[in-house]
Structures are given as structure tokens and as C-alpha cells.
């Protein structure tokens, strides 16, 4: 099969007896190298290089059809890339699945209505060589009290917590969540994320796709934005927000010099609204310094774009082109890659 190792230079194979952590880097939890995926004439994934280190909590964001689920399927070994390689802990994804190294909470389906919650967890536990005790994962997913209920009678949130319990059984080192909180109420989402967060503390690598941008902002160390099968931004949520044409500086200033403001490096757009001025820029410090030292401006405010705006700006149909579009002018790299430590050494 594909030898994943040859694509991870600098990685020393682990798993040998006597191997000490800290001396060498562990293999990346996920290593995608030049991954393309074509379905007939449709290219769902168009060259993704992505390395997620052990212990990272990563949000995978993108509009429908961006290639998120296609990518997750390849990481799970459910499909093979047309081009490029996918390695999970240095292994072929299917070997990683068989060893219980990786598990997933899928978006929908995957449950049998005529089994009870408890039976479903038991069934799944029988499929692995070693698992956490079923009672323990049900407790952690908060489904102990509905163990006797038929799956068909469970709410969407309860079914999702069941999928989470099933995914916890093999005690995976990598947990993939595809839109995990869809169909849950606010309380369910909060409970779900509390469990995930607790779980991440134990050192598990977690990658989740979500449409709830505030979740990405609140729960991920790292945000990977995908659009049309390519990674358009990759960094902390603060970095990603800055990428989407940065910040807004607003001040009260009569007779602002629009040309002078426009000539400051990193300024995208200057708007004069009566006696106030609004400047969209990537370097808010330079604009603020100019306004406060060269003009009589007052009531100065600096605001960052929310992740929501960043998401729309970077992934929307009218958003910048992935390679050096106007919106990313002045950003720390027109390809959008801003993460200085992609190997996850930060944990």
C-alpha cells in the first residue's frame, strides 16, 4: 500500500519499545500531502497539504461543497485520494481505523433504529480488541439514563451523544467530528462541547467540521478554512480573522484627508460618513498612529472582524481568490498559510 512514511521527512517512527517521548517528534495525527479528489469531472479537493499534530484541536471550516466531508472521508479510509497521500499517525488510514487509533462522529445516519442505546454501544464495543468500559463512555456522553431507549425514539441530540459515546469506545488518539452539533438545542450543544473539551485535556487530537463559527472560535486552537477544495486560511482564529482584511478603525474627524489615509500601507478602503471616518485595513496600528498624531481625530475605535465576517470574506462566492486575491492583500501570505508551527509542537 502507500507508504506514508516516505512523505514525512524528519519523522522518526515511534512505537518501538523503550521509545521516549520528547526525544523525537511523534508522527502527525493527520498528514495530507498534495491530496486531490476527483469524482468524474468534479474536483472536490484540489491539492490540500495539511499537517495536524498530536493533541491539537482543529476546526475545519468551509461552506457546503468545500470538500470538508470528502477530506474527512479520506482521513477515515472511506475513500482514497485520486492523487497525493493521506497518513494517520504515519499509517494508512484503514490500518489506523482497525487499530482503533481514529474514530469519528458522523453527521447523520449510522444508527439502527431497532436497537437500544445500550445495545448500540455494546455492539460497537465488541468490534474492537480493547475499549473503554461501555458504562464509562455512556456516562461521559451523558446517555446513561437513556440506555434502554430504542435509538429510533431518541432526539437528534441524543443520537449525536450516542455517536459520541461510540466514538469514545476505542479511546482513539484522533477524533473526527463532522458537524457534530447539528440538530442540537443550545443546552445540548453546551453539554456536548463541555464533554469534548474535557476530553481534549487528555491529549486527544480533535478535528471538527462545523457551521457554528462561534464554536470554532471558542473551542479550536487552530482554524483551517477550506474553500472549493483548497485551504484558504490556516491559523489561530485571531490570525484567520486578521486575514480577512483585518480590522476596522473608526474615528470622529471633520474634513478627513481621504487620499492620505488611503496611502497608508495596508489600507483597503476609506469611508467618510459625515464627521466620522471608517478605515478598513490590515495594520490598524499605523492608521491609528496617523490619525492621532497627524490629525485632530478623536473617539478612535479599533474593531476586529468576527470570525463570521472572516468566514464570509474568505469562503463566500464573492470572496477573494485563494491565490492572492484582493481581500488578502497585506495578509501574512497570499496563500493564506499563517500557522508558524504546523506540526503541533505547541502542546
Amino acid at each position, binding site marked *: 500500500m502507500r507508504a506514508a512514511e516516505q512523505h514525512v521527512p524528519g519523522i522518526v517512527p*515511534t*512505537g*518501538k*519499545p523503550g*521509545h521516549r*517521548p*520528547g526525544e523525537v517528534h*511523534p508522527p502527525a495525527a493527520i498528514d495530507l500531502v498534495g491530496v486531490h479528489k476527483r*469524482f468524474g469531472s468534479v474536483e472536490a479537493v484540489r491539492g490540500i497539504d495539511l499537517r495536524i499534530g*498530536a*493533541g491539537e484541536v482543529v476546526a475545519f471550516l468551509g461552506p457546503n461543497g468545500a470538500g470538508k466531508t470528502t477530506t474527512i472521508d479520506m482521513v*477515515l*479510509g*472511506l*475513500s*482514497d485520494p485520486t492523487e497525493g497521500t493521506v497518513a494517520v*499517525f*504515519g*499509517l494508512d488510514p484503514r490500518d489506523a*481505523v*482497525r*487499530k*482503533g*487509533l*481514529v*474514530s*469519528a462522529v*458522523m453527521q*447523520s*445516519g*449510522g*444508527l*439502527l*433504529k*431497532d*436497537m437500544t442505546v445500550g*445495545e448500540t454501544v*455494546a*455492539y*460497537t464495543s*465488541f*468490534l*474492537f*480488541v*480493547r475499549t473503554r468500559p461501555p458504562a464509562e463512555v455512556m456516562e461521559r456522553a451523558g446517555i446513561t439514563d437513556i440506555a434502554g431507549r430504542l435509538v429510533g425514539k431518541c432526539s437528534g441530540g441524543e443520537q449525536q451523544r450516542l455517536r459520541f459515546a*461510540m466514538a469514545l469506545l476505542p479511546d482513539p*488518539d484522533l477524533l473526527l467530528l463532522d458537524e457534530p452539533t447539528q440538530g442540537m438545542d443550545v443546552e445540548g450543544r453546551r453539554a456536548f462541547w463541555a464533554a469534548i473539551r474535557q476530553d481534549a485535556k*487528555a*491529549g486527544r487530537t480533535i478535528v471538527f467540521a462545523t457551521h457554528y463559527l462561534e464554536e470554532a472560535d471558542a473551542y479550536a486552537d487552530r482554524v483551517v478554512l477550506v474553500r472549493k477544495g483548497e485551504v484558504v486560511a490556516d491559523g489561530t482564529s485571531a490570525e484567520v480573522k486578521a486575514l480577512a482584511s483585518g480590522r476596522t478603525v473608526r474615528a470622529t474627524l471633520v474634513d478627513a484627508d481621504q487620499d492620505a489615509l488611503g496611502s497608508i500601507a495596508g489600507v483597503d478602503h476609506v469611508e467618510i460618513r459625515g464627521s466620522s471616518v471608517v478605515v478598513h485595513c490590515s495594520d490598524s496600528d499605523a492608521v491609528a498612529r496617523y490619525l492621532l498624531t497627524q490629525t485632530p481625530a478623536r473617539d478612535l475605535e479599533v474593531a476586529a472582524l468576527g470570525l463570521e465576517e472572516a468566514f464570509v470574506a474568505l469562503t463566500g462566492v464573492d470572496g477573494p481568490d485563494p491565490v492572492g486575491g484582493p481581500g488578502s492583500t497585506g495578509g501574512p501570505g497570499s496563500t493564506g498559510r499563517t500557522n508558524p508551527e504546523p506540526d503541533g509542537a505547541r*502542546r
Partner: protein
Amino acid sequence: MSATEAVIDIADREEPPLGGFKPAIVRLEVRRLLRNRRTLLFTVLFPVFFFLIFGLNSSYAKNRVGPGNVSAFIMISMALYGAVLATSSGGAMVAVERLAGWSRQLRITPLQPAAYIAIKMVTSLILGLAAVLAVYVVGLLTHKASMPAYLWVVTAAALWIGSLLFAAFGLFVGYLLPSENVMQVIGFALMLFSFGGGLFIPLSQFSHLLREMATYTPLYGLNELVHYPLVQGTFNWTWAANLVAWLVIFTAGAIWRFRKDTART
């Protein structure tokens, strides 16, 4: 879990033997079956019901057939009907589970597709055994069916094992028609096959043309073969040829669809 465990000792992780096949899973599958009243009604109670109607009719029940009687002959037919219903519905469960996304869910576990099929086969054989035993026990209790003791065992074992042919049929149809209606399709097809095989009405009652056509249907060979120990007389090799031909067709069809289904795109 301490922080140092962040380095994953992959050597510590094992893959399950037998592709993940375990008796405990079969036990859960059987429990699921027992919950499904409709399946139980069709596969266990219907054959018993048919036996009570056709097998005890005093105008012919005591007529001799080999070392036994007509009632025993009909008992074998009805048990075979129940057994093939059980194995083919077991195979067809694959269709329903695929529709629910369960097969996909299983693919992100260590369970291998072949082990999954084996679990379904064993489960449906257990249901088939229940169907066979139900008919035979009722046959015993009603005191009409008569044949030497060893033939009760031999015929029951033969038709039970032979019903595996229809596990392949159920799998094939289940993969072919991914819908909840697959059970109705199978029920109807088995009804036709049962008439064709002479399970419900002796083929001698058919017109010449129909009788000729019936010998090519999938239950004909199996039905004649499981009755042979009782009927005896001359052995007809076309029975075995019929069985082998349909076994090849159903198995090849099931493997073809199975490969297509589990192929990664």
C-alpha cells in the same frame, strides 16, 4: 492519562482476529430479531400455520411415502419454506442496514465486510433453525407425521444447511434493491419459488408445460434433494444440477454487488 502518553504507542494497538467476528455480536443480532415481531410471524409462525392446514388433512395425511407418510413429506416442505424465508431475510437485512448508514458506520470500526456478512449468515441460520424446529415440534405433537426417527434428524439438518443457498439470494437482492421494501420483494419471490419448487402443491398437479418450467426455478432442486431421504427411489441428477447452478448464480451475484458496495471510490 498523563501528558507523556501523548506519544502513541502504535505497537500497543491490535486488530481483532477473524475480522471482528464475535459470538457476542451474533447474540445481540438475535436479540434484535426477537424484537421484530413481523419477521418472527412470517418466518416461524407462517410455516407452522401452513403445516397445520395442509399437513394434517386426513384425506391424504396418512398415505404412505417411502418409509413415512404424506404428512411428514409436507412437514419437510414447510420447514424448508420457513428456513429459506429466514436465511433470505437475514441476507436482505443488509439492505436495510445499508440504507440506515450502519454499513458505513461499521467501516470506521475494525469489522471487516466479510465478517459482517458472516455475522448476518449465522444470525439468519439461527432464525432458520427456529423456523425448522417450530414446524418439526408441531409435527411431532400433532401425531400425524410419521417417518423413522433418523429421518427426522437427517431431513431437518439437510434443509437447514441447504437453506444457506437463500442467504446468498437475500444478500444479492438486498444489495440490488436498497430499500425498505426489499422484504416484500423477497416474500413475493419466495412464494413464487415455493410454488415452482413444489413446496405447496405437488408438481404432478401442474400442466406439462408449467411442470417443465418449474424444474428450472431455484427451490426445485433443493426441495427434491431434502425430500429424497424420505421418498427414496431413483436419484435424479438434475436436482443437484439445479441446486449448484442457482448457488453459483446467487453467490456470484452477491459477491459482485458486495464488491461494488464496499469498493472505495
